C-alpha cells in the first residue's frame, strides 16, 4: 500500500468511521470531562450511590449465574439438534434484545403481576415478585439473558460435529460430550456471552423500573439512581454515569477479547 494514493472511496469510508467515532464518543467524553475527580469521589461516597451500585452488581451477578446455568445447556440443544420450529424458537428467544424495555416491563407485569398469568398463583403460594429485589433479577434475566443465549448458540455451532461424534464413539455419555468436549471448546464464546449479559444487566433501566420499581435500597439500581438524581443532583448523576461507563467499557473489552480468542481456538 505504501506509495499509493488513497482512493476516493477509502477517504469517504474513513471519514464515515471518524463521524461514527465522534458521534458515539462525544456524550461519553462529556460525562467524564464534566466530572471533576474530587467531586466524583464526594458524590460517590454518598450512601445511596454506593447502595445503588451494590444492587446493580448483586442483581447482575445473580442474573448471570442463572442465565449461564440454564441458558448454556439450552443453547447447546438449539445449536446441535434439529427439530421443527427450531428457527422460530431461536428468533423468539432473541426477541428481548430488540423489544423496547417498556414492553418487556409490561410483559413481566402481565405474567408475574398480582393479576398476571402466573402472578396470582405465585401470590397464593406466598410469593410476591413486583417491587422486590427478586423482581430486579427477573427483569435482568429476561432482558439480558438473550445475549448469552445467542453467543453460546453460535459458539456451540462452531464446534465441529465430527469432534462431538468422535467423543461419543470413544464412549462418552451425552453429558460427557457436553461437559468435557463441547463446553471446553466453546468456553471463550460462553465467557463472552456471560460478560455481555452482565454488561447489559448493569445498564438495564426500563424493564426494571416498570416491574421492580425504584425503591431506594431495594430495587433502585445504579441506572435508576442516575435517573432519580438527574433533576436534583446533576453532578451526582454525572459521577455515577462515569462509573457505569468505565465498568461497561471494561466488560465490552473483555467480551471482545474472549470472542476473538474463541474464533482462533475453533480453527485450531
Amino acid at each position: 500500500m505504501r506509495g499509493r494514493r488513497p482512493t476516493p472511496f477509502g477517504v469517504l469510508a474513513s471519514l464515515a468511521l471518524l463521524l461514527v467515532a465522534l458521534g458515539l464518543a462525544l456524550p461519553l467524553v462529556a460525562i467524564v470531562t464534566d466530572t471533576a475527580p474530587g467531586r466524583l469521589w464526594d458524590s460517590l461516597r454518598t450512601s445511596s450511590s454506593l447502595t445503588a451500585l451494590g444492587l446493580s452488581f448483586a442483581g447482575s451477578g445473580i442474573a448471570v449465574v442463572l442465565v449461564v446455568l440454564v441458558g448454556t445447556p439450552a443453547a447447546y440443544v438449539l445449536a446441535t439438534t434439529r427439530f421443527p420450529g427450531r428457527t422460530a424458537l431461536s428468533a423468539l428467544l432473541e426477541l428481548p434484545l430488540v423489544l423496547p424495555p417498556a414492553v418487556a416491563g409490561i410483559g413481566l407485569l402481565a405474567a408475574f403481576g398480582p393479576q398476571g398469568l402466573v402472578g396470582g398463583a405465585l401470590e397464593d403460594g406466598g410469593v410476591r415478585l413486583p417491587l422486590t429485589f427478586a423482581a430486579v433479577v427477573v427483569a435482568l434475566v429476561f432482558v439480558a439473558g438473550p445475549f448469552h443465549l445467542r453467543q453460546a448458540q453460535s459458539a456451540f455451532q462452531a464446534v465441529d460435529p465430527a469432534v462431538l461424534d468422535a467423543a461419543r464413539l470413544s464412549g462418552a455419555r451425552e453429558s460427557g460430550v457436553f461437559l468435557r468436549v463441547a463446553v471446553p471448546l466453546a468456553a471463550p464464546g460462553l465467557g463472552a456471552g456471560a460478560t455481555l449479559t452482565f454488561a447489559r444487566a448493569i445498564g438495564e433501566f426500563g424493564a426494571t423500573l416498570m416491574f421492580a420499581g425504584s425503591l431506594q435500597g431495594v430495587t433502585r439500581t445504579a441506572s435508576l439512581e442516575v435517573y432519580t438524581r438527574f433533576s436534583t443532583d446533576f453532578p451526582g448523576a454525572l459521577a455515577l454515569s462515569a462509573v457505569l461507563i468505565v465498568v461497561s467499557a471494561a466488560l465490552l473489552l473483555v467480551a471482545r477479547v474472549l470472542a476473538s480468542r474463541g474464533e482462533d481456538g475453533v480453527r485450531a
Partner: protein
Amino acid sequence: MPEGLSADVRLERGERSFAARLTVAPGTIVLVVGPSGAGKTSVVRALAGLVAPTEGTIRCGDRTWFDAAAGRDVRPRDRRVGVVVQELALLPHLSAWRNVAFAADRGGGALRPGGPSAPATSGGPSVHAASGTPPAGRRTRRDRRAEAVAWLDLLGLADRADARPADLSGGERQRVALARALARPSTALLLDEPFSALDDAAHAVAAELVRSEVARRGVPAVVVSHDPGDAARLGARTSAFVDGTLQAVGGGAAGRRADGVAG
C-alpha cells in the same frame, strides 16, 4: 465367541442409493476399496451408527445394532466400536495422550498394548477383570498417561504425547486417532483410511499393529483404503463396489486369516 460383524443394508448418499453387503468373521479384516465418492465412508459411518441406513440390518456378535424393519438403531456409544473417522476428529483441546486416554477411560477399562486379549462383551462389567486394569476412576493420572503413551509408542509417537492436535502433522494426527481407536476394548474395529497420511515405514508399522491387535482380540475389523497393497499388509479379504453394491470380491489375500502371523 461372537459370530463377527455382518451387514446387509441400503444406504443413501446425496441423491444416490446403494447397497452394501459385508460379513467379517471374528479376528479377520475386510478391506473396503473403491473409487472416491463410491460410498466407502458412508458404509463405515453406518456401521458405527453415525448415519442410519434406509433399509436392512447390521449385526455384531449376538447383538442387532440396526434393523430398519424393527426400528432398532443402537447408539454409537453403545456399539462399543473402535473407530478412526476420515476427518480424524481428535479433541482439539486435549494433548495426544489425553485423546487416547479419553477413549481408554470410557471403554470400561484400558487395554494395555500386548496385554491379555479382551474383546468387549455387550456392556458387561467383566472387562476390567479380563484386562487386569482397575476402572478409570481408580487409576491415577500417571497410570493413565503411561497406558496412553504405550499405545502412542507402538506407533512411534511417544515423544509427541504432550502435543495438541494443532501442533501435530497430518501423519501424527492419524496415528493418534489410530491409537485412540485401539486403546480400549471394543466389539469391532472400523478404520476409515487410517494410513493415508503415513509414509511407507509408518504405514507398515501401523498396518502390522492393526493386524496383530485384530488377531489378538479376535474382533472383526473393517478397514477402508484406497491402497490395494493394504490387503496383503493386513492379511485382509477385499470388498469392492460391483454394480453399485459393496460386496466381497475374490482373489488376493481372500480368506486368509490375520491370526497366527501376528508377532
